[in-house]
């Protein structure tokens, strides 16, 4: 089979690898930026201190725990867990919301999620459960915060204990991912665009060799 890009000027492997060809240098800068962003996001997602875990009993609706935030702009990954094992299969659910209030009682944060379990037969037995969710949060002001839960369920009372874990993190991954992902996409596109003839020629050669 003849090479598909025979009419184009032949570009050799050296040119593909040559970092000053076309838009290649810009593509390389963008790819380097994306790699730094992804490494940075992994660093910022790392733990930064000791986690605090609170255990709530849904039947004690007035239970409140205190979270001490030592620095402004502290970031926590808050994981809420409850076992759905006692819920009716396929139709039972339990919703748990976490409410964070200031010392003076003002709502600062609130978020929720539900827990359930399901199973059935489709090309064999399958089962699925949801027993936790995580919400990443920022506390812009240092101080003591009151943590409580609100819960409801498909059955009149579902008293499985709820665990709320506040895990300190270094920072938010979002800004770095918002920069890194487009940089990666544009970098790959620019790199390909700049070297597409040579790349296509090479791919064509490979596919011929495979045949």
């Amino acid at each position, binding site marked *: 089979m003849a090479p598909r890009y025979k009419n184009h000027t032949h570009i050799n492997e050296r040119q593909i690898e040559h970092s000053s060809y076309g838009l290649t240098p810009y593509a390389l800068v963008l790819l380097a930026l994306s790699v730094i962003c992804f490494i940075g996001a992994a660093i910022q997602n790392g733990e930064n201190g000791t986690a605090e875990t609170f255990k709530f009993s849904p039947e004690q609706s007035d239970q409140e725990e205190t979270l001490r935030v030592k620095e402004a702009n502290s970031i926590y990954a808050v994981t809420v867990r409850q076992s759905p094992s006692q819920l009716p299969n396929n139709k039972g659910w339990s919703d748990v919301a976490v409410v964070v209030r200031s010392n003076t009682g003002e709502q600062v944060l609130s978020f929720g999620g539900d827990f359930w379990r399901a199973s059935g037969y489709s090309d064999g037995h399958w089962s699925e459960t949801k027993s936790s969710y995580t919400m990443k949060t*920022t506390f812009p002001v240092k101080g003591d915060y009151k943590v409580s839960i609100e819960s409801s369920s498909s059955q009149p009372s579902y008293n499985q204990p709820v665990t709320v874990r506040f895990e300190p993190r270094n920072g938010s991954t979002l800004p770095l991912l918002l920069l890194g992902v487009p940089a990666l996409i544009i970098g790959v596109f620019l790199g390909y665009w700049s070297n597409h003839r040579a790349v296509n020629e090479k791919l064509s050669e490979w596919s011929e060799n495979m045949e």
Partner: protein
Amino acid sequence: MSKNIKVIIFAVICLLLLGMAWSASARGWGYAGYGTQYSESRGYYGHRGPSFFYFGSGGRYYPTNSTRSGSLGGPGSAGSGPGAGK
């Protein structure tokens, strides 16, 4: 302007963007609670939910004034599974 200078300027712009992203990251940009303001007279106010770009399994929840009594329908306005849309 030579090509090398253009590439260097482009790299410097990328570094500046990286610095801005790092600074926003250190302040917890995009997570629930970011942007919440505090003033002596008004107390806590401002944005409290996660950013549009946030993807996580928890959803924003709007409690009533009293967290003790619960709202009509209770929690469960967010999330998926059998309890969704409650």
